[in-house]
């Protein structure tokens, strides 16, 4: 167990480093001059050159690379070109906002998808209806759904705020958007797993023991359904924490995705790097947590091949 954990952590570290290196290199491939982005109206080449020197942009790529990763290992994410403040202090509040949104979104998709999936598995007649709902949601682009929700619940029904901001009232629609977009996947996996489980020999054994339908669901079916759903929850939390760009842009949610887009436009390399690294760490960490939980829920996954 400890060995598995250590191995997974090492793999995770390698993955994060790999992503960071690739992201660093990609930033130099992207055309554009950060100095010009910072001072678009600067006339003299001297001013621009001055900025480049300040930002160490005049150094060879290899030196910049070595500097950046040396700092990274010391826990220093650098300073934003644009905001002139440390990237860490810039990104942390954004990360908190995105964290809330990710959490609310995952809760929404698990509740919506799980309910649809359970209904589809229990009532064969509902299954066709659930399938068409799934298909509709899958075919719907995130921004269209988000705008639609804004239009209906915000402008028409006045049930949700349409002004920006980031409070408990403002989180509802973006979370619902994430939930509806993600729900079909959960509905599908829950319905399939649950149908399998309901027709399994161990459920027949439970019937033979005289358990009530409710006890059979509670004690024998749901836990067998939980395990694959957990993996998906882990994947979703990780990827949402790396920024739910579209949804954050549509709803003006001040999360890390919005920051990433703005920084990319400003060629604010340290901030872009940080958002990428934070995202990679989130994916790795939540995957690991999901797998650990899965081992607890389904002991068969504990004995993985060496």
């Amino acid at each position: 167990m400890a060995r598995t954990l250590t191995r997974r952590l090492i793999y995770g570290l390698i993955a994060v480093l790999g992503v960071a290196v690739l992201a660093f290199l990609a930033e130099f491939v992207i055309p554009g001059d950060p100095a010009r982005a910072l001072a678009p109206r600067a006339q003299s080449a001297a001013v621009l050159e001055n900025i480049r020197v300040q930002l160490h942009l005049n150094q060879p790529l290899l030196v910049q690379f070595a500097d950046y990763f040396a700092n990274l290992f010391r826990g220093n994410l650098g300073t934003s070109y644009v905001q002139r403040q440390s990237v860490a202090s810039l990104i942390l509040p954004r990360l908190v906002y995105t964290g809330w949104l990710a959490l609310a979104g995952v809760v929404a998709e698990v509740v919506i998808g799980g309910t649809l999936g359970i209904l589809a598995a229990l009532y064969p007649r509902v299954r066709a209806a659930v399938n068409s709902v799934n298909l509709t949601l899958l075919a719907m682009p995130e921004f269209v759904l988000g705008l639609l929700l804004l239009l209906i619940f915000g402008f028409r029904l006045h049930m949700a705020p349409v002004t920006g901001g980031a409070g408990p009232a403002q989180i509802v629609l973006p979370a619902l958007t994430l939930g509806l977009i993600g729900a079909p996947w959960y509905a599908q996996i829950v319905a399939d797993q649950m149908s399998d489980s309901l027709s399994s020999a161990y459920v027949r054994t439970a019937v033979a023991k005289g358990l009530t339908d409710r006890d059979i669901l509670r004690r024998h079916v749901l836990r067998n359904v939980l395990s694959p759903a957990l993996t998906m929850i882990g994947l979703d939390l990780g990827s949402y924490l790396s920024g739910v760009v579209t949804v954050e842009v549509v709803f003006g949610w001040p999360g890390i995705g919005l920051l990433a887009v703005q920084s990319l436009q400003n060629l604010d390399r340290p901030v872009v790097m940080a958002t990428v690294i934070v995202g990679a760490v989130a994916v790795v960490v939540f995957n690991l947590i999901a797998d650990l939980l899965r081992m607890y829920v389904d002991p068969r996954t504990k004995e993985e091949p060496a």
Partner: protein
Amino acid sequence: MTAAAAGAVPGATPGPAALEVEDLRVRYGELPAVDGASLGVDRGQVVALIGETGSGKSSLALGVARLLPPSAVVTGEVRIAGCDASSMTGREFRLRRADLLGYIAQDAMAALNPVQPVGRQIGELFQLHRGMSRPDARAQAVHELARVRIDRPDLVARRYPHQLSGGMRQRVMIAMAVALSPPLLIADESTTALDVSTQAEILALLGVLKAETGSGILWITHDMGVVAELADWVAVMYAGRIVEQGPVHGIFDHPRHPYTEGLLRTRRDLRSGRPGAPLFQIEGAPPALSAGRSGCAFAPRCPRQTEICAERAPALAPPPEAAADGRLVACHHPVPPGGAP
């Protein structure tokens, strides 16, 4: 004389039979899987229900245990230890079923919940039906594991099914079936998936438990080779009907139904046949399920068939020149006691 009464063996425990089945029918839509079967199992008796795949033997067993999917229509009378199970509502039967019968499935790996320790799965019965607390049920589960001759039952109780061997898992299944000491056990191909030596151990265990508890066992199998090791009585099924039943040695030594005879002859050839010698086979294939058949289902494959066989289905009755051993045969032209001329 009912089939149940005919199934009585001398010296059996007095009291109502473990199982009496009267004219049981199982239909899937229009298709009959069991077409009016009557059968009895006494206390302390092992009745082997044999037949090919699709003969309806599992449908009969699952019909008795009310474990068929809702799409199956079951009619007929089922009495377990004198208790009219077929007239009980679903709820009444659910509350009493574990006290009435234990069901031992074929594939224990699939029949045990993969994400629960086996002790908990056994203990569940005592929590549910005996109102025990979880710790008490746990202790009782360990006791039940010891009863099926598992070493270190306290350790095994904490294991998950995938951590046990095939034989151990089957013992756990048996422990679950006998936990509440029901008068009837139904073993549905319970040893088919096991290797030969494990199979022998499980059969021996069933024999011991039968002697200890006095339960009757309805044993569904297609493996003629092991029938004589445990069974007292044999019922042969073909196309949804019981075509012959009688004491195990009577059936094996002097089969009276041409189908039974064919089955046994194939087996004899398999066992003692010289290399290269032709293997006896029953011509043709078992019929598919179909509604509204007249005549004997085996007639098209039967070497002894005549006109009447296609017209009228033979009733299950004592054959002519029968020894008084309770033998019943459904055949217009049974094989004479000395074998086919």
